[in-house]
């Protein structure tokens, strides 16, 4: 029997900041990190001296490749005046900063440090799309890349396995895309703060302006079915099934539970933290779930003593539409094979019983890979503290939120559960 996981000392989140996510020609990792850091400082209700931070844990996947510069820990610690205190970079592909958060939690839980900055940063847009795809493919399993699999290709294959097993179709994935795009306009930091209807209108206006034939679509789904508007990337993944290329940074201030009230009267507590690792596609006997997510969930639920139904909302790693479907089942929010029906019924909408990706998700908020994990937790922070503005989950007594982060083709997965008391 698995031992019950617990922290040696409670850990609280007392501040959080995130840059806008987008493709920035004129901003680099340091500029974006500075934005997130300044917002984090301003978010600490009772104020604090950044000189008190004991250490930095920084998630970054592959700026080495994207901007030909490695060793980002000390670059960022110098930027924020932390040097000579320690800076540690964590790498878990697109889950890199969830690992930074986890290491920060452990550093405090062990009693070694009291105040830690957990963060992530990625600068992807300075390369061509093909180069970015090549950089991201560093995180596939070698056997996959060799036979031509790209990231959209891997998730496309998972979709065909899911369709074959559960009878779902592309129409079910469209529901996810439409839902994410309906949340995004309410998030001022989103890369694509537009509904699908907004995108359709923009295309119509652009055609009119250029004197080209004006397209007509009956509704959002007919737009998404139109391969001129929504071309195939890796069937069944089309453009609107895929997250964009993004730059961005995010950070959170973690402290020992017993000193949290020195920083704010409204801290969030880390009550569940789980991580799992996975194998390549070929080593899985069923391609409709991620073993690593299920393991991460088991750890996090086990530690917190909670069940999936106790989670009131969650950010999940929707790098592709099919991924969101798989995660909401793996995390136990819906039974295997039932996720697509739940989405079709609107259960995962912001005003539904189980809101998923109120931020707009990776699809619309953006996915600067190394910053995504802490960026997801930033949304949980905003929602739990009632600071999410127009996209605030309309539930009374919002107390427990979660974030699920995935790296590679399911090689690294995490689930983090935060509580407001």
């Amino acid at each position, binding site marked *: 029997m698995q031992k019950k996981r617990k922290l040696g000392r409670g850990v609280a989140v007392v501040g959080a900041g995130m840059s806008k996510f987008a493709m920035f020609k004129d901003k680099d990792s340091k500029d974006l990190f500075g934005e997130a850091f300044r917002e984090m400082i301003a978010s600490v209700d009772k104020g604090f001296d950044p000189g008190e931070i004991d250490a930095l844990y920084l998630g970054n996947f592959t700026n080495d490749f994207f901007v030909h510069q490695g060793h980002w820990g000390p670059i960022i610690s110098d930027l924020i005046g932390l040097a000579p205190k320690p800076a540690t970079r964590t790498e878990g592909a697109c889950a890199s900063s969830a690992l930074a958060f986890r290491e920060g939690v452990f550093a405090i839980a062990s009693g070694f440090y009291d105040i830690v900055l957990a963060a992530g940063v990625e600068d992807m847009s300075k390369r061509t799309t093909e180069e970015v795809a*090549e950089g991201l493919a560093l995180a596939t399993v070698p056997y996959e890349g060799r*036979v031509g*699999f790209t990231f959209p290709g891997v998730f496309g294959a998972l979709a065909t*396995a899911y369709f074959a097993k559960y009878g779902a179709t592309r129409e079910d994935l469209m529901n996810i895309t439409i839902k994410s795009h309906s949340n995004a306009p309410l998030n001022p930091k989103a890369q694509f703060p537009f509904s699908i209807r907004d995108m359709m209108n923009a295309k119509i206006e652009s055609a009119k302006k250029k004197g080209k034939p004006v397209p007509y679509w009956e509704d959002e789904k007919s737009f998404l079915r139109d391969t001129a508007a929504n*071309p195939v990337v890796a069937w069944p993944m089309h453009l609107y099934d895929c997250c964009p290329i993004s730059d961005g940074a995010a950070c959170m201030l973690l402290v020992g539970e017993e000193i949290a009230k020195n920083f704010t009267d409204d801290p969030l507590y880390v009550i569940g933290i789980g991580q799992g690792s996975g194998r390549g596609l070929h080593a899985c006997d069923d*391609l409709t779930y991620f073993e690593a997510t299920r393991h991460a969930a088991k750890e996090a639920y086990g530690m917190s003593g909670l069940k999936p139904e106790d989670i009131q909302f969650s950010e999940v790693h929707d790098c592709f539409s099919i991924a969101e479907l798989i995660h909401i089942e793996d995390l136990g929010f819906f039974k295997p094979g039932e996720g697509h029906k739940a989405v079709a019924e609107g259960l995962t909408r912001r005003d539904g019983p189980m809101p998923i990706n109120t931020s707009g998700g990776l699809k619309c908020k953006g996915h600067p890979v190394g910053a995504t994990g802490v960026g997801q937790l930033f949304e949980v922070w905003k929602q739990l503290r009632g600071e999410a503005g127009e996209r605030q989950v309309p539930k009374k007594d919002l107390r427990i939120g979660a974030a699920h982060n995935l790296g590679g083709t399911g090689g690294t997965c995490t689930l983090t559960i935060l509580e407001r008391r």
Partner: protein
Amino acid sequence: MEERPFSDISYEQYLNEERLMGSRCKKCGALFVPPRSICVSCYSSDMEWVEVKGEARLAAFTCISVGPPFMIAEGYDRKHPYCSGVVELEEGARVDARIEGVDANKPEDIKVGMPLKVKFLHRGEGDSLKTYLAFLPM
């Protein structure tokens, strides 16, 4: 008796020789394709080489329009997509492979579960010879 190490390099060499090879744990019988040198079922390192027949069923697939540089170099692009998949071998193990002999412009006609047989795709010559594992519809 085969003397080659149970490695990815050996696996690739065998593909060059048109043999699809895996390793079997002598202790618990678990089969691994590509080969593993450590059994992940019982942790034994006592392995033997096994050649599989190359008959399989399609477990999952995708038709890729935007491929990596080496596939673009073979002439694949948005108008000429290619198919990659995961296939389940008759012996039970699964491998990643290219799927040939299908129309990647008509993914609706490609079916999970369809029977396949192995094909070795040789590219380049001499030291730069590479063999890609592929499967064709039966």
